[in-house]
Each structure stands twice: as C-alpha cells, then as structure tokens.
C-alpha cells in the first residue's frame, strides 16, 4: 500500500472512532450512567486526543492532495 493510501486508510479508521465517540458523548449527556464506568479526566483526554489525531490525519491527506504535481 502506498503512503497516501496508508494515510487515507488510517484517517478513515480514526474518523470512524470519532463517530463512535460522538455517539458516546450524546448518550452520556442524556444518560449520565453511560459515562460512569470511566473517569471524566480519562474520557476528556481520550476524546481530545482522538479528535486531534483526526485533525492531523485529515490535514495530512488534504495537503498531500494539493501538491502541484497532482493538479492538472
């Protein structure tokens, strides 16, 4: 698998994880018991890191796509 393909595959995986985390946030907002098995500190760190990772990976994929040689 080439490097850009690898970045895209990794990015899609992380975006899926983010989607799951967002669903968890909505659930925890209305049913607090959902969040009771993990400390707030740990959950905040995991959510923040996952969102940051998604931002970095999407940025890498986007910048790779705007290189001069890829544009007609």
């Amino acid at each position: 698998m080439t490097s850009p393909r690898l970045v895209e595959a990794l990015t899609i995986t992380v975006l899926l994880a983010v989607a799951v985390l967002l669903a968890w946030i909505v659930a925890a907002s209305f049913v607090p018991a959902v969040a009771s098995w993990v400390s707030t500190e740990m959950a905040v760190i995991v959510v923040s890191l996952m969102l940051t990772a998604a931002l970095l990976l999407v940025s890498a994929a986007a910048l790779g796509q705007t290189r001069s040689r890829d544009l007609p």
Partner: protein
Amino acid sequence: MGEPPEPGGLRLDDLRPEERAFVERHALKKPLRVRDIWALGVGGVIAGMYFGWNLGLDGNGPVAVLIASLVICLLYLCWVLALAELSVALPFAGGPLAYGRRASGPSLGFVMGWSMVLECQFAAIATVLAIGGYIAFLVDPDHPDDTIKVVAGLVTVLVFFLLHAWGVKEQSTAMTLMTYAAILGLVIFFVAAATHFSWRRIWTDPLLPEGKGWKAVLDAVPYALWWLVIIETVALAAEEAHEPHRTIPRGIVWAQLTLILLVVLTWLFACGAVDDSQDLAKDPVLDAQGQPVLDEAGQPKTEDVSYPLAKALRMIPAGQSPWLVYGFGVIALFGLIASYHGMLYGASRQAFALGRAAYLPRLLGEVHATRRTPVPALLVSSVISAGFVVANYWFKDAIAIAVLVSTLTALIWYVLAMVCLWLLRRHEPGLFRTYRAPLFHALPVAVVVLAAFALVMYAVIQKDVIPFTIVLYAGALAYFVVWARHRIEKAAPEELAARGKL
C-alpha cells in the same frame, strides 16, 4: 491539445447569441489567486476568534468549549475539502444554488442558495454589532455606550458598501491587509495573555460542570460553530478565481489550517488568562448609577459580551496599560472588519446569483455597468444589516440570535451540499476531473455525521431560534413556489450549467 474548458465546462461558442450576451453582460472579473483565496478564507472567519465563541463558556466551562471546538474544527476541515471539490466542478458565484440546481433541480438549488444568504447575512449582522461593541468599549471601557455602538455599526455598513461596490480586486487587497493585521492582533493578545496564564484555569475541578456533565459539550457546540462559520464564502469566489482548480483547493486548505491553529491558541490564552471564564461570556447590565439592574425574578440582568478578548486583557495586570488595551482594541477592529468584509461578500454574491437566475427579484442580479460589481445585492444586504444595528439598541440578545441563525442555516446547507456531492459524483463523474478531494466516500459521510451531531443540539437545546428560522424559510419558499419558479432565467450560468451547456 486544445485549451481546456473552464471548470464547469464554460464554452461560450456553444451558446445561443442571447445566452452568450446574457453571460457576458453578467460576468464577473477573475483576478483572485491563492493568496487572495487564503485571505478571503481567513479574513472572512477571523472575527470568530474575537467574539461569539465566548458565549459557549456560559455555564459550560473551558474544557467543554475545547471539545466542542475540536469537533467543529474537524467538521470544517472535512467540509472545506468537500466544498473545494464542488466549487472547482461548478465555479459559479451562486455556489450552493449551482450545486443543488445541477444535482437535483431548482427547488433544492433555491433552498441551498437561500440558506447561504441567511447564513452570511446573519453572520454579517452579528459581526457589525460586535464592531460597534468593540468601538464603544474603546471609547469607554467601563461603560460602553449603546448610541456609540449604533453609530459605529452604521458607519461600518456604509463604508463597506462603498468599498465593495467599487470593485472586487480592490476589496481583495484590502482584505489581505486587514487579515494580516487581525492575525497580528491575535498574536499581541496571545503574548499579553501568556503573562497571566495558568493551566489550573483551564484544567478546572470539576472538568465539566456538576449537574451538566457531558451535556456542557453539546451546549457549547452551537457557539463553537461560530469559530469557523462562513469559510465557505471562498467557494463563491470560484467564479472570480484565476485557475480555480489550483487556487481554490490550495487557498482553502491553507486558510482552514491557519484558522484551526488560531482557534486552539485563542481558546487556550483567553481561558487560561482570566480567573473565571464565565466573565468572558456575560456582563451585568448596569443602570445610570452603575448599579446592577435586576430582572423580574430579582436576579441581576446580564447581556452578551461582544468584546471578550479586550475584556480578558482588561482583567489581567498587563491590561492595566492603556496603550495595550487601546492598541489591541484598534487592531481587533481589523479582524472584525475583515470578517464583515467576507460576510458581505458572501451574502451579496449569493443574493446576486439568486437574482441573476430570477429565483429572487431580478434587480438583485444586476451588476454595475463599468465596475462589474453586484451593487443592488450589496445595497439590500447593507440596508438589512443597518436595520438590525438600529434594532439592537432596544433588542439586547440580537448578537446571540444572529450567531445561532447563521450557524443553523449553515448546517442545513452543509448537509444538503453533501447530498449534491454524492449525486453528482454518481451521475456526472466527468465534472470532477480537475480536482478530487481526499478520502472520497468517507469525506461527505464525515461532514454529514459531524453536522448532524451539531444540528441535533439545536433541536434539543437551542430551540428558541427554530421558529424564527422556519419563518425565514417559509417566506422565501412561498415567493419561490408562487412566483419565481415559473420565471427562472434560463440564460443564467447556473441554469446553463444545469442543462449541461456550461
């Protein structure tokens, strides 16, 4: 090899004489390059750093605002990539109108175009109100005067109507300079706030407010949208961009990455510099003697803070220097003005495109004979903004309402635009031969999921703005269905493109 057609396939030779004459008579110039697109993107949004997001701190705290902001940054990064693909494929001033029209038909095109008119118009209203707020703060930091707010707002509206009417290249140059100044203002703020920074103000105990928990994140989302809303005005510049398949993707990606960095730093230093971040969201309403005004329940009345960074500076030791407070306040105005510039650009260009194709009154689609600028659309947008500036004298929640309506209507067309992207990729893959965004199917899905996450919060938490928004849509749709639907201008670029002629 012959010269490739303009993205979207513009071939004037293929048009009938009357269609060619209409296109030439309503054509815009094409002077914008990557730096102009970057400046339009950053400048149009940079007001989001200076006000609006702070309202999300009210009752939610800095950590909730951070998480909401990261979600919104991800939404917008995915969104601008998908939008770049659409705007390169269909590079018309009526961006969303063109996407919806070509993907589905006039009704979807109108709903999307109208959504963007509302988004940009209400963003412009909120921003010009904040400009008045910052100027009133500069005149009297302890008691900002409402009359000064109104006068400053009206002067801003008038000056920028004249500048936009003068010409797009001239306003683009002004925008670039103001964007640099606005970034400089933020750097000054970061350095000053760093002198009074503490991690303990950010990593609070508890991290999320007791009793609210993770719901605080959801509460903050509608205001976090304000960080980056309006970046999509860049897509409207495609018709005025030189080689849009190169300039739009590069300019929009670099603009978005610049903005994400500014979002994180602004949040970090604003929340880390003041003892209680709630102070950045609400101000007590004081009477003529400086005493708090009480509401019917006996609680102190509050109003939205429209100058949070200036207020944060004022609350720290470094901010006791009048030079710093006034210097920053003046530079902050550049940021707000740059954004008002971009919002007026977006509102007027979208109204122009809807008028040019006769979805809205045709007068809105006229351009100045020599300057080639859409003067009637600019005038209508400016008059509406001026009306709200005057109304704000009595209606104190105007900024919050304008922010919420702008972000809600934005989310509606983001979701619809992804439906268009999916339909067009499926039915007309040739449209996307000059630029294709990364992540292919995952990208529009990510935008829809993230936008749906934010939209749900309006239905649950920010219900107050929904009836007003419904009225705005109902009125426009009634006009479209009863009158405009049967009189659409078939020679308008968006209509020719929908029929495969452009």
